[in-house]
């Protein structure tokens, strides 16, 4: 509970307050001009914050060593998703060792609540919450991310490698 204080008579006379404020602004401005690296604010978008690697930003679909999608279209992420924002269509892969893969994987990022359940549900480290958080777009369709965007967007530089490797799993007898 906050206590409401009655403003005193001096406070009612507001000009000193204004000057004090402007003085503070002036001092800070001058300090910032000569001391730019200690500045708290950033020059967005030229300057960006470094986020912790555990930051849960926009989704990334990981890839295998050969660059194909790691995702097996098990739909556990879609099942776990509380916002119902993941839509997957599965199909039979021509390689019997892969068997099932997604022909479409869409995340409606406007519905997403960034809870990270999809990442947790994934049995093969195929979907991760990435470091990016900027989601600008000009039209509604820009917010429906497809495989091309989720796995191979320019920022990912050819894709993020999944930690789960089929060969190693086979060797381990799984």
């Amino acid at each position, binding site marked *: 509970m906050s206590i409401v204080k009655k403003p005193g008579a001096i406070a009612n006379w507001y000009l000193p307050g204004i000057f004090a404020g402007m003085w503070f602004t002036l001092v800070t401005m001058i300090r910032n001009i000569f001391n730019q690296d200690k500045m708290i604010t950033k020059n967005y978008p030229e300057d960006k914050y470094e986020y912790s690697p555990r930051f849960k930003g926009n989704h990334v679909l990981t890839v295998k060593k050969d660059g194909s999608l790691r995702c*097996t*279209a*098990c*739909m*556990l992420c879609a*099942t776990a998703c509380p916002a119902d924002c993941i839509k997957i269509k*599965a*199909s*039979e892969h021509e390689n*019997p*060792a892969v*068997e*099932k893969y997604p022909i479409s994987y869409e995340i409606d990022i406007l519905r997403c609540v960034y809870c990270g359940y999809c990442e947790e549900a994934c*049995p*093969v480290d195929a979907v991760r919450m990435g470091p990016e958080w900027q989601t600008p777009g000009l039209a509604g369709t820009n917010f429906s991310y497809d495989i091309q965007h989720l796995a191979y967007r320019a920022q990912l530089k050819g894709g993020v490698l999944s930690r789960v490797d089929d060969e190693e799993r086979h060797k*381990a*007898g*799984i």
Partner: protein
Amino acid sequence: MPKCKINGQEVEVEAGTTIIEAFKKLDSEIAHYCYHPGLSVAGVCRLCMVEIEGNPRLQIACNTVVQDGMVINNNSEKVKETVKWGLDFHLINHPLDCPICDQAGECELQIQYMKFGQYDPEMAEPKVKKNKVVDLGSKIVLDSERCILCSRCVRFTEEVSKTNELGIFNRGDRSEIGTFDGKPLENDYAVNTVDICPVGALTSKDFRFRQRVWYLKNKETVCPGCSTGCNVKSYYNEEGLFRVKPRQNDEVNGYWMCDKGRDTYKFVNKENRLLEPKVGQSGQWDSQEVDGVMSVMSTKIDDAVKSAGSDKVALVLTGQYTSEEYASMLSYFVGHLKSKNVYHWVNNPESFDEFDGLLLRGDRNPNTKGLLNGLDQHGITAPWSDLETKLNAGDIEVLLVAGPEDPSVFPTLTEKVSLFSKAKNLFWMSAAKTEAADSATTKTWQIPLKTYAEKEGTFVNHKGIEQKIQPMVNIVDCAQTLSEVASALSGQKVDHLGSLVKDRKTNHFINHHGGGL
């Protein structure tokens, strides 16, 4: 009749009943894989172990007949421990495939592990590798690693379909299910093996990877594929139907259904449906509103009756609709129009009485018997040739045809449409979008009808057994039932079952968005 005590509960069973059947009778839980009531006893999964008082060894419930006074339990520590290990033995070489396995969600291994297992696995050695994604034919894919060798499928091909395609090759933990090269699993009942497979070893190519089963709802209905009227469960979501599985009814189909019946979900789905009423002929068609078409139909019939008598109006019915629909349509015709110009369109007269000895009948309509009953009641006996004569003579002003719901069972559709085109005005009512109907050469109105998945009603099978169907999901919003058509024509408001209602509001919001998860 012997009495026994199962887990403290007394139960009386028929002589010769096995313990597992007694458990089922009591709805008592018992772990099992290889036992299937429709097949012989194999006794190989060794999970249905029970303790019988006075017997130091645990016995399998599926091969032990209940004797009077037996005291049986499957909840002692000894049994539980055995079942747990039994599950462990099943799972040590079972791959961790669940994410890509179609059976996940309805897999007996998952279900029974959660019920009876829940141990920490001890296996540290590599699993046995076997063949995966083995093509068994045009309908089924096998994954040998997932197979737990319960032999249900092998027994099915041996005992039920009697086609002997499947066998278990090799021995020990190298055993694998398979077919002989050049003799694939191709019989009319093959997909039943997928249903009885307790794990994801056999998967249906048709359903493979199309949906995770937990996204699907199901309802009990009756297969419209033939006059046997197999009891089935249809699996659907808001997009439509995905598959059909049999459910047990000893009087009708036992535990099985044929593969042709499994395809009956396809014609329900949007891509095969007539989506809106249209008018036109010879490939030139314009969209219409339902109400508009109904009033045109009503006017045309009234005009024809007024000018030339009710003989100029005829109705053609197929055995694809519910008894309720026949009743309202016939009472409109006979009661309202005073016409007995109703004809039964037999889709395949040559093979109509065929029977494959198991389930599939040549009469590929679900309700021929219902239609015949309806015609009988109204004393309608006009043979098909009458209609042909009248059409050829140009005597028919308005022809109403309740056409096929499933056009694939109407081999002579095109010829029939060209025959119907001899009427001056043709009202073609059908759920299906067909090229044949689009090729009609007279002025034709096409009116979309509801399929069996969208309406309530009764089918009467070849034996005369009445069976109910129930609506699942609306695929085509503007589709009508024949009852609705009849009421619109007679100016009465009736519900889809034919009973009178005062005022009916349609709520399009529900129609568009209903049926979601």
